[in-house]
């Protein structure tokens, strides 16, 4: 593994607007500390997450993807998270079959009050990703924000 001491995994969080995003927000207002390795995108519902978004994140060089929605039964749209679960189960299994470490895709349910759980999940995933090492699946292309930081735009 090509881990130098400076290497920090980067992960993309796709968080549902109603529960998990609010949970992450609460972690912030509650002054809880979670690893800064995560970049968060707010989605209307975990049911909105097309596997395309997950694979694109890996293509861009993110080391892992965290998908988080409301607990079963708590979906704002009643059934979005159940549908998401089906899709994610297939996505993870298929990627594993092709040779992607399944730990790179993590799914979890975090409610708006579970800031503690959010911190836990992110820390745990970062720990896992440090074990797995950098994502070089798609040639380890630089992420857009890393490129931007270099050019200063």
């Amino acid at each position, binding site marked *: 593994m090509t881990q130098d001491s400076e290497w920090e995994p980067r992960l993309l969080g796709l968080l549902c607007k109603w529960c998990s995003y609010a949970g992450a927000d609460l972690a912030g207002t509650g002054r809880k500390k979670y690893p800064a390795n995560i970049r968060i995108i707010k989605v209307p519902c975990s049911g909105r997450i097309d596997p*395309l978004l997950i694979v*694109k994140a890996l293509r861009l060089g993110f080391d892992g993807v965290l998908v988080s929605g409301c607990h079963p039964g708590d979906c704002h749209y009643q059934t979005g998270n159940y549908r998401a679960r*089906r899709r*994610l*189960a297939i996505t993870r299994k298929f990627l594993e079959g092709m*040779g992607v470490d399944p730990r790179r895709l993590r*799914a979890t349910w975090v409610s708006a009050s579970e800031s503690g759980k959010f911190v836990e999940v992110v820390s745990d995933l970062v720990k896992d990703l440090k074990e797995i090492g950098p994502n070089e699946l798609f040639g380890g*292309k630089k992420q857009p924000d890393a490129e931007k930081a270099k050019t200063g735009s």
Partner: protein
Amino acid sequence: MSYSAAKNSQMQKKLRQEAKALLEQGKVDCIIGYEPGSLKHATTPLITKDKAATERLVINPFIVNNLSNFLPYTKGRIGIVAKGCDSRSIVSLIQDNKVKREDLFILGVPCSGLIDVSKVEALVGKYRDEIDDISRQGDIITVKVGAAKKEFSLSQVMFDNCLACELPTPAEYDVLLGEPTSPIGAAAESAGKLDELKAMTAAQRWAFWQNEFRRCTRCYACRNVCPACYCKRCFVDETEPQWLAPMPQEPDNLMFQIIRNLHVSGRCTDCGECERTCPVNIPLRALTRDMYDIVDELFEFKSGMDTKTQPLLTAYEVDEAEDLVK
């Protein structure tokens, strides 16, 4: 029922009669079937409104195309020739509301498996044009080249997906043109590539696919030939945001095929059209078969079996796949 040429020609005769009668009585606006192709040992799709053209319809062990691909783009009532695998794709399209059952007249062909001419070519070391005759009697395939004659078994020359076929006789039809057939039941012999891949480590598997997709030209033939890929606007054609670079390069080619497989999950019937059409011979069935097995294992779902079933990704159970979520 074992295969015989006589039974086959009977079936063909019945098909021509039925097709002609359907057009004459105005029960359908057009017929979609197969006619002899311009190459030897090949057929080509025939879409016709002409009664006389029904005399060109054929049924033989080379009717490879999955004709259900034409359905979402064909207007009016359609009479369609369907083997077992095609009937599953048709059922899948009905489940997705892409075609209406009442607009279809399905001429069901009890299939005994199709011959992969490229396998025959490899076995006898001759090109398609140089092979004079490929005929089947029972479970023996006889290939004639000039005066020479060679015999092969089914597992040597049949398409891999025919060997693993679960439904040779259509489940959904209006007329069945012959007696029902039973599966060849040689799935173990057909899973070759997938078994090989499963024995590899994850890194080796990924390296294998990277290598395969290096020669992909992203011609999109696999997408265009797929009955489950009917989106009017495919994600690869989108420009805002642009998901893939237009230039074919290995990482994007690979990503394209991953997403394509995920998008057709639960609708892909493993008919093998993508692998057959691939101009650079990427073993795509190792992916579709894997997806087919995953869907079956996780949700006990087999695509295209019953018109009443809800499509996989629009349905859910409250307690399933719970180990996914931590």
